[in-house]
């Protein structure tokens, strides 16, 4: 069982020591103030297939992932206790994330690995049960947990803690928070986008940026998949050389051996592309993460629009009510209104009615003032916190993507080296012909 936060001091300060099972943890993710990850080592160790009955009592097969946790101070001390573990399905991760999004609308929520295989080049399986897909998903889920557990705000969440430590009954606890009721309706959010008058300029810029990020990462993913397809073709056709050299060597005397061996190298060349492209999927996954992150960023901006819009609406409402009160009290109509017109045409109401109306208005105005206060606070808080997190996100993104690009270059170099090796071997064989 993981310990509580009082042992922070025991945790190592050198963040680079903490590595996840696949080494995906890097400096970006562990930051000042991140508490959970300092206390607890987390990893998604395995994946397994299960069968069971689903909500409509139909038999289904699904994959579960093993989450292992260990207290960090035990690790630091050199003790090696057995980790606590529990199994979770992808849908539970989704539930956790939805909860976090609703509960912390000012945080750019770390994304989950893709639900379905997308941007697939033709040889890659689009099947969710494919072992390579499952493996990449495992890595993605671990990545998600590490990001959440190292986030200065999200890592403190109790539901998150439960998710990692209590296998049974977690779902009920989540639903009990009632987060689903707090979720904004899509329609409301959309209408706010169009009708808001004074959104924070920085947020509008950020929203525009998120559109750009999404567009570019998805373009890049598509182009990369097409390139992978074509490269696959080029390599595989070379395999035909292997066969023909072998056949040719059969009719040759001195040239035979050299040709035959060279043919083998051509076969090796053709086969090498499979591993090369499989490795490149890791790069694609990193791009996909930021494709999803773009959407999360946009969500934070839209939340601002919504909050701002609601504030504007509340203010507007308050103003108009105050105006109505004034009109009623003084009898002077400042603004044109049909009510005013009909009043003029059909005469004003009786004094008792006016009294009643005024009283109601006063109540409404008091309420309205409360509402405006609340909304103002909401809006300001959101702006403040969101801005902080968006800055954090920006730095993280720059670092992560730069790392990703460097790793991509490393992969390319490795591919070139392999190519040189194979062709040098073939050349030696040709020279012996």
């Amino acid at each position, binding site marked *: 069982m993981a310990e509580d936060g009082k042992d922070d001091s025991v945790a190592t300060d050198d963040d680079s020591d903490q590595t996840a099972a696949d080494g995906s943890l890097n400096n970006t993710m562990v930051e000042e103030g991140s508490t959970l990850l300092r206390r607890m080592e987390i990893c998604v160790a395995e994946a397994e297939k299960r069968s069971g009955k689903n909500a409509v009592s139909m038999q289904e097969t699904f994959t579960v992932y093993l989450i292992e946790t260990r207290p960090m101070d035990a690790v630091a001390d050199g003790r090696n206790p057995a980790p606590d573990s529990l199994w979770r399905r992808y849908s539970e991760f989704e539930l956790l994330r939805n909860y976090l999004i609703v509960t912390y609308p000012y945080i750019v929520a770390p994304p989950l690995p893709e639900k379905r295989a997308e941007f697939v080049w033709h040889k890659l399986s689009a099947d969710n049960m494919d072992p390579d897909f499952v493996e990449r998903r495992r890595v993605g889920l671990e990545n998600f947990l590490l990001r959440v557990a190292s986030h200065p705000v999200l890592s403190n969440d109790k539901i998150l803690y439960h998710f990692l430590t209590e296998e049974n009954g977690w779902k009920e606890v989540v639903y009990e928070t009632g987060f689903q009721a707090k979720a904004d309706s899509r329609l409301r959010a959309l209408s706010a986008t169009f009708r808001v008058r004074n959104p924070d300029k920085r947020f509008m810029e950020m929203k525009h*940026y998120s559109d*750009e*990020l999404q567009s*570019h*990462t998805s*373009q*890049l993913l598509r*182009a*990369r998949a*097409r*390139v992978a*397809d*074509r*490269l696959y*073709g*080029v390599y595989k*056709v*070379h395999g*035909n*050389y292997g066969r*023909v050299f072998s*056949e*040719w060597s059969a*009719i040759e005397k*001195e*040239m035979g051996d*050299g040709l035959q061996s*060279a043919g083998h190298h051509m076969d090796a060349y053709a086969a090498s592309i499979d591993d090369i492209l499989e490795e490149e999927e890791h790069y694609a996954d990193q791009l996909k993460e930021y494709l999803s992150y773009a959407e999360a960023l946009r969500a934070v901006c839209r939340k601002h629009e919504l909050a701002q819009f609601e504030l504007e609406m509340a203010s507007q409402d308050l103003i108009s009510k105050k105006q109505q009160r004034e009109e009623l009290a003084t009898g002077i109509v400042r603004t044109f209104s049909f009510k005013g017109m009909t009043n003029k045409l059909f005469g004003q109401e009786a004094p008792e009615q006016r009294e009643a109306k005024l009283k109601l208005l006063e109540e409404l105005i008091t309420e309205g003032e409360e509402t405006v206060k609340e909304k103002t606070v909401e809006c300001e808080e959101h702006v403040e916190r969101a801005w902080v997190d968006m800055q954090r996100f920006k730095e993280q993104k*720059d670092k992560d*993507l*730069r790392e990703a*690009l*460097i790793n*991509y*270059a*490393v992969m*390319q*170099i490795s591919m*070139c*080296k392999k*190519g*040189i090796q194979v*062709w*040098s071997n*073939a*050349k030696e064989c*040709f*020279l012996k*012909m």
Partner: protein
Amino acid sequence: MSVGAPRGLASSGQKPITEILHPLSAAEETLSSGPDVTVNVGGDQESGLTNGTPVETSSPASASLLFNRLQLDDDSEADARDPYASTETRDLFVTVDDPKKHVSTMETYITYRVSTKTTRIEFDLPEYCVRRRYQDFDWLRIKLEDSQPTHLIPPLPEKFVMKGVVDRFSEEFVETRMKALDKFLKRVADHPVLSFNPHLNAFLSAKDLNKRQGLALLTKVGESVKHVAGGYKLRARPPEFCAMGEYLDTFTQKLGTIDRIAQRILKEQSEYLTELREYGTVYSSWAGSEEELRRPLEGVAGCVTTCCGALEDMSENMSQDFLPVLREYVLYIESMKNVLRKRDQSQAEYEGRLEAAILRKQEDRTPMPVEVEKCQDKVECFNADLKADWERWQSNKRQDFKQLLTGMADKNINHYEKCQAAWESLITLLQEKQTEDKTSETN
């Protein structure tokens, strides 16, 4: 190793040309001269210089020639493995280069400069420089085929080019054709028998190649070899020639397959290149919306562009150097097959005449007619020539393909090296920036 044993070339003076030349080739009539007489095989000695005089010389001479040849063959076996031993004693160097377009009222065509350097006395001057067009090469080849029917003549690049499809005047086409013509001429010049052919001499040295010149010289032997009576059927082809035929058939097939594979690779590479270019532009456009990431993204875009360039170069090379050589060998094989067929015909003729003669002998006791003996000589000479040329061809083929395939490997290695260098310099750049950032952070 063919007849032209390395030691026996004219320049060395050890063995006169006469003893080496094929009885069917030039300077036949000077056979009776002594060993020290060198013969001017140049084009101006018209009198009695018929290229490929019919085998009317006396049998003893031809028999002794045969004997000499066989001896030479035995001696030269040691050199069979190293066909280029003769390069040290080479005395005829030819080059084809400098293509130029000529526009006349009737037509537009390309000429090439043909340069010759030689110490052979058959040539009046040590150096020549003439301009020739494809037609002239074609003429030369036909002349060689006619006058040396028992020898394998190297192929020329394709004669006809579809006007709409291929641009006859494009740089690539001209370059490719020129290389093939150069190769053709070099192969002829390296051949111990063909290189002494007077038509080659004329081709290399005459200011204006009067192609009608050849007509008068159209050999009777050429005719006599062509004159194979239709009715003769081959009894039994010696196994070594069967093996040659089979080899050539299979080899043609394999070359065809390799050609198709190479073309397919080019196609795949071209499609890959298209996608790769697009891929690079996506990085560039993304860089536009980023600040910190702009340099890295542009860097990647740059690397991708470099790789595109490297790939383009390699593809172009393969298309210009690799494929034409393959196709040329297919033509070469066709020539070889032709020679094999002619050999078959010549043997068939001999067998036919022999049979007829034997029948007559049985009837009226006439001695074996001279024609039959001549036929026998012809066949045996043909066989010997062919075997010699075959060995030479096999050697050359081995060298040519070794060169071709190592060239292909080199191009690929070169391509990867360029790409690797680009990516490595990008990493250096990016990591420099990283340490810059880190130091500025801690400051």
